[in-house]
Every structure is written in structure tokens, then in C-alpha cells.
């Protein structure tokens, strides 16, 4: 399941909902990303996205993870709009019978999300706003999944 929303999410509640009444799950991995103030003067992080394509791309990414690993359940939640330092940005949850698939699929989902899902971050400080540059290391991280 995927969701794009402005409101915050509760990691515990999301995991509970995902695994409710399920006895086939032996491992749940969660990753959450939060707003980091790198320079000490961040006022807010503005998350822009491409409504329509964002949801389609997240569905494509999730489907690919489900084809590659034996997942019992998965969830991607990504926030958009204006976020303060320390706030949640993204949540990925993967559930499987065993931990290896859950760990790997969570990493894959984040690597693909970071390089394919149409979101853009803009850092707002007292001196103005700056669009965040994409990092080569994210491309490198995503590329390792295509070598298989």
C-alpha cells in the first residue's frame, strides 16, 4: 500500500495496522526518514511532488519489491508540504516470513524511492530558500539492485 499525505504518521500504529490478525509474518522492518538540520539554521523543509505520477511511481516501486522478495505486506508513506526540523518525512514498512527479505526489500524501496519517485526538497532558512541537489551516492545505491 502507498500513501502521499501532508499529515504526520504514527510508526507504531502503521505497523500494528499492517500486521493485525496476520500470523504468517515473522519479520517486520521499518525505515523512517526525518527532516535533518544540516547547518543549524533550517526553518522548514518544503516537499513538492508531481500529483498523479507520484502515486503511480510508488505503486510501480512497491510492485517491483513484491516481485523480487517474498513479502507478506508492505507500506510506503511519504509526506508533502512544509515540514519542520525533526518531523517525519517518509516511512517504509516491509513484512515477511523471515528477516532477510524484509531488510533487503526495505533498502530497495528506499533506494528506488529516492531516485525515481517525483519529490523535490527545498530547504528554507533565514537567508532564503534552496532546492536540494540530488546526490550521486543515491544513484549508486539504487544501481546495485540492477546488477542482480
Amino acid at each position, binding site marked *: 500500500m502507498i500513501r502521499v499525505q501532508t499529515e504526520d504518521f504514527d510508526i507504531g500504529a502503521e505497523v500494528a495496522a499492517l500486521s493485525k490478525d496476520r500470523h504468517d509474518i515473522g519479520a517486520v522492518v521499518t525505515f523512517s526518514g526525518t527532516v535533518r538540520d544540516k547547518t543549524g539554521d533550517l526553518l522548514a523543509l518544503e516537499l513538492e511532488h*508531481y500529483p498523479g*505520477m507520484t502515486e503511480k511511481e510508488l505503486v510501480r516501486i512497491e510492485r517491483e519489491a513484491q516481485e523480487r522478495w517474498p513479502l507478506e505486506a508492505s507500506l510506503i508513506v511519504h509526506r508533502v508540504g512544509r515540514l519542520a526540523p525533526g518531523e517525519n518525512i517518509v516511512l517504509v514498512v516491509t513484512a515477511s516470513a523471515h528477516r532477510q527479505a524484509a531488510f533487503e526489500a526495505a533498502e530497495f524501496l528506499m533506494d528506488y524511492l529516492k531516485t525515481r519517485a*517525483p519529490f523535490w526538497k527545498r530547504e528554507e532558512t533565514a537567508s532564503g530558500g534552496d532546492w536540494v541537489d540530488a546526490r550521486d551516492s543515491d544513484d549508486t545505491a539504487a544501481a546495485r539492485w540492477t546488477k542482480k
Partner: protein
Amino acid sequence: MKLLYFAWVKQKTGTAEEDVTLPPEVTDVTGLIDWLRRRDEGYEAAFEDLKVIRCAVDQEHADLNASIAGAQEVAFFPPVTGG
């Protein structure tokens, strides 16, 4: 055809969304970019460095040499930075 712009591409073109009627010789993304660049200095600035331009045709990632024949919607944006 509907054109969409995001992040700093949107800031430079000064437009989030527009409908355009393209001349018949514009058949791929590169041709579309060339056509847009001739419109004014904002578009020229937005598409100055194509290494940092990504595009989607009908809401799917596409190469800059992709065809736009029959496309409803083309979007231009910088490399994505979500997550």
C-alpha cells in the same frame, strides 16, 4: 498537449502548467525543449543545462530522446530528491 514544470524548473520558466499546441515538426522531447527554449529567457535559463533536466511522458520517466507522439502530458523537473 499539457506541459508541467516542477521545483526550480518551474521557478525558471515561471509556469507550473500550460497547454500548448506544437508545430508538427516537434516529435520528441529534445525537439520540444528546443521549441520551448526559443520562447523566452526564462525557458532558455530553465533548459540551459540538460544534464540536470529529467522528464516524464504521460507520468512515466522518459529519456530526453523519447517520442512525444500522441502524448497527453509531458513534465520537466530536476533529478528527484525525495525520501
